[in-house]
């Protein structure tokens, strides 16, 4: 049972590792979906929202990391072990 729970947790970890990062991606997708479905005229813009939103989320997230770790020894992020593809 513990092995099964461990496997399920690791499966979830394949998609969500940094909760804030995953949430930001979900927010970008939701905004793009809003553009596409709620304002049909804005459908072409939803592609741009999706692409630029994802790129922006990526840059903003990685730029936060040095501040979290500044002064500390450079190491693996907390909660992430090495079996972590």
């Amino acid at each position, binding site marked *: 049972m513990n*092995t099964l729970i461990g496997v399920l947790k690791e499966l979830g970890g394949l998609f969500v590792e940094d909760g804030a*990062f*995953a949430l930001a991606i979900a927010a970008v997708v939701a905004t793009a979906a809003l553009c596409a479905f709620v304002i049909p005229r804005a*459908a072409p813009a939803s592609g741009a929202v999706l692409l630029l939103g994802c790129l922006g989320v990526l840059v903003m997230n*990685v730029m936060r990391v040095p501040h979290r770790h500044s002064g500390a020894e*450079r190491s693996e*992020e907390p909660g992430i072990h090495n079996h972590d593809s």
Partner: protein
Amino acid sequence: MIGSLHFGSAVTAAFLASLVEAVEALTIVLAVAMVRGWRPAGLGALAGLALLALIVVVLGPLLDRVPLHPLQLSIGILLLLFGMRWLRKAILRAAGAIAPHDEASVFAGETAELREEERRHAPYRDWLAGLASFKAVLLEGLEVVFIVIAVAAGRGMLLPVGIAALAACLIVAAIGLLVHRPLARVPENALKFAVGVMLSAFGVFWTGEGLGVAWPGADLAILAFIVLFLATAVAAVALLRAAGAAVAP
């Protein structure tokens, strides 16, 4: 031309991602083999492969029954979460913000953990060793299966993309059996960087298709997304390095 671009990107992404996953699974299976011998390691790995085959056989045909747009949207979102997670980590590692993944240290850690398990649960040591091997093959294999389905689904490319992934796994297994050591020299972060870029690009493309976006240039848009993600990631590494240099004493 456009079709072959899509095909080439999908096959390359699946091959490189499978290389990475196979190297990681091999490290654990080798650690089990070194501690408890090849029998539990091999049986555990075979059981993992059998369960993976069963999952593919059962779930594969179901995919054909899912309507295309919901399939593209759900796979696209999962690809975004999965691919951008890889890319984020590869950027952080390339910039030196977090430690690089080291197969040799994973091997040493896994070996020590298995020896400790062996000491604590002596009667079940073969079972536990086999379970470790099974879990590693199953988890890394599920990632391979997901990537193959994600980049190939809905385009009739499951067979060639699956063959590319299988070829990568067989190459790694053959080298691992020959050298009996973890493949620590594989440039894993560079591979993850490349795969992260490609999967993120596929993720944006599929999610957009699922939302009904008509991408300019159709499939050619994937190439543009790859270039954009690559340029952004390289710029992020440079920015992070500069920020790290400014913080360092």
